[in-house]
């Protein structure tokens, strides 16, 4: 790279003496016709117009000056600003860009020894303060006590005064990737804040910029940012696409998510362990599953029941699922497959499927619940209950229905994050942290090659959740995740008491995670009788078990 720059410099210095436009044209004519492109550079794969050569060389020089030998931005004096006033910072940044100092930044005439001074008291002279032409170096991330701004000092000694400044400053994205990642996050957050304040013009400008930054960012961070940027764009432009994805497609996506990461497996195994323990000694058992999907949770439970000492009980499963667009009876198909399995392993099995738009449409009387002396009931919900929070009163109705079923145990698995706050910006920030961690964990599993189908599908699956959290409102916003603490409060006040998941569940979960190749980052944590699966220090999903208060266990 350096040699090329020097070569360009040489070319430049040789042509700088002949910068006269007519001379430049002459030079063009003297070269063989290469469409106006510089021939030498074209050999290397760079398409640069001969007429642009001086310009490009100048920019490269200045970039090089600013970056220094090791590619790190030259940090000089910093100025402190109020870190919590993100939009004020962006505003002042933009206003500065449009004053006379504008053309100093990266390419353009500048007087020697100029420092770009982001004093906040400059008046906006330009009538379009949202013209994001250049974004200079961003804030230093990490310390919560101060966010300092980098000021680039332009070393202008090498800039020869006979260089022509360009017509207008062109955007240049600097290459230090760590800083780029930080800037990406900050721009995302600034955009969300603009949306929060209903400043759609600013938000529009910022979201476009996020798109550029995200595309340049490699790895999990870039992907997450792309999904969040897309969701923000939908919110800003008020595009709410009808949920185009068929339910069956969604189930396929979830299957890929099931296969490529331990989250669903963890959920199934821990819930099953609690149910198995609750079913000890029973001869007839009934599971009401609010999250049947493909029924992947139940083979393992059925196998454990088949092999328990004393033989298996009669196993009845009631599955609840959403209506299928093509009217196929997906639930019955699942039931049929489970029946085949049951027959193979010698378990007496009965299945009933219920199609419902919402869990609140089901009540206990529909389910043919037998008295508790005859049949032991378990209710299971994996990543479903939070959807009820979109409609007022729905979750209470469902919890009452559950109590009416007189279950011995209720297993609840939910995302461990609050994406249901009243303030949009809070939801956004929570979701950004949560899904960044999630994407990170998917990316790091050695199982997935960078562009493997499972990984991509899993990300699409999560991306839909992101879109719903950020772009939807009202009854459309169904991904209303809440933390374990919030669910605990709700369950306790609705007449349920906790059932502790035992050490068996913990050990089995730990063992399951140990099987995941490259999954060194996954952590199982016990939290007052509940189990949480997380990535490094961040818990991501939580399993808890409950029973109606006052029922003997």
């Amino acid at each position, binding site marked *: 790279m350096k040699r090329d720059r020097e070569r360009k410099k040489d070319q430049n210095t040789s042509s700088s003496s002949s910068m006269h436009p007519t001379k430049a044209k002459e030079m063009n004519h003297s070269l063989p016709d290469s469409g106006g492109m510089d021939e030498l550079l074209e050999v290397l794969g760079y398409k640069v117009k001969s007429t642009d050569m001086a310009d490009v060389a100048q920019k490269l020089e200045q970039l090089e000056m600013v970056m220094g030998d090791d590619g790190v931005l030259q940090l000089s004096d910093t100025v402190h600003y109020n870190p919590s006033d993100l939009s004020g910072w962006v505003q002042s940044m933009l206003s500065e860009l449009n004053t006379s100092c504008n053309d100093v930044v990266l390419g353009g005439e500048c007087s020697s020894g100029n420092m770009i001074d982001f004093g906040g008291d400059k008046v906006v002279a330009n009538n379009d303060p949202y013209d994001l032409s250049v974004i200079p170096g961003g804030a230093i991330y990490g310390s919560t006590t101060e966010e300092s701004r980098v000021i680039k000092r332009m070393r202008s000694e090498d800039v020869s005064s006979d260089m022509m400044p360009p017509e207008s400053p062109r955007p240049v994205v600097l290459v230090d990737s760590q800083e780029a990642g930080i800037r990406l996050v900050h721009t995302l957050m600034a955009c969300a804040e603009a949306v929060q304040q209903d400043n759609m013009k600013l938000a529009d400008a910022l979201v476009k910029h996020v798109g550029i930054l995200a595309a340049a960012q490699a790895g999990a961070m870039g992907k997450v940012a792309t999904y969040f940027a897309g969701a923000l764009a939908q919110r800003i432009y008020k595009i709410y696409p009808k949920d185009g994805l068929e339910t069956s497609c969604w189930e396929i996506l979830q299957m890929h998510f099931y296969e490529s990461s331990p989250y669903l497996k963890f959920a199934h195994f821990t819930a099953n362990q609690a149910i198995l323990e609750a079913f000890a000694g029973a001869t007839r058992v009934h599971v009401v599953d609010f999250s049947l999907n493909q029924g992947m949770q139940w*083979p393992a439970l059925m196998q454990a029941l088949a*092999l328990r000492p004393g033989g298996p009980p009669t196993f009845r499963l009631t599955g609840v699922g959403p209506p299928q667009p093509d009217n196929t009876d997906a639930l019955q198909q699942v039931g049929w497959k489970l029946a085949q399995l049951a027959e193979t392993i010698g378990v007496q099995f009965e299945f009933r499927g219920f199609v419902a738009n919402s869990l609140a449409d089901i009540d206990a009387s529909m389910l043919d619940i037998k008295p508790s002396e005859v049949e032991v009931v378990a209710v299971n919900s994996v990543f479903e209950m939070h959807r009820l929070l979109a409609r007022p009163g729905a979750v209470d109705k469902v919890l009452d229905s559950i109590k009416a079923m007189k279950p011995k145990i209720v297993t609840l698995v939910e995302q461990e994050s609050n994406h249901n706050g009243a303030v949009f910006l809070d939801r956004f920030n929570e979701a950004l942290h949560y899904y960044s961690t999630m994407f990170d964990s998917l990316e790091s599993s050695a*199982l997935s090659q960078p562009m493997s189908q499972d990984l991509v599908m899993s990300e699409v699956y999560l991306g839909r959740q992101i879109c719903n959290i950020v772009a939807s409102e009202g009854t459309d916003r169904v991904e209303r995740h809440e933390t374990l603490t919030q669910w605990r409060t709700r369950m306790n006040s609705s007449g349920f008491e906790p059932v502790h998941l035992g050490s068996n569940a913990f050990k089995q979960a730990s063992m399951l995670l140990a*099987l995941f*190749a490259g999954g*060194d980052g996954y952590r199982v944590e016990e939290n007052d009788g509940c189990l949480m699966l997380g990535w490094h220090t961040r818990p991501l999903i939580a399993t808890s078990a409950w029973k109606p208060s006052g029922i003997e266990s």
Partner: protein
Amino acid sequence: MLNDHIDILIEILQKLDGRSLSTAACVCKQWHAIVRNDSLWEHLCFGKMSLTPSLGVRSVVTSLGGYRRLYMLCVRPVVTRLKKRRVNNGETELVKRVWDKREAELSLSLFCVEYYERLFSDGGEPTAKSLKFLCTTVNVGM
């Protein structure tokens, strides 16, 4: 000739690990037939366990595909993975220990999930994807 004393041959084969058993199956037609006998693989799966599994296990495993399949798909990868214990400095070391009941139960559960998943593909795929996570990955030079 060893082949005249099948019972001794089986005694010897029972001492082998999975890899050697598979190699033994390639020796000759007679050995191939003997090694395919599922009871050898049952011995491999549960013979060294601290607790012998209940009688019901055999019928369940057989109907889900047999002990050889169980070994290949679940037991071998599970044991291999769990044998590696992380030491404090981040390295892994191999720990020789007897396979325990809990690991056996987990393997059986995974085996059952795999059987179930195959039901969906109508016999198209030989191994369902739910066990993909147990496969060792090949690091294609990054």
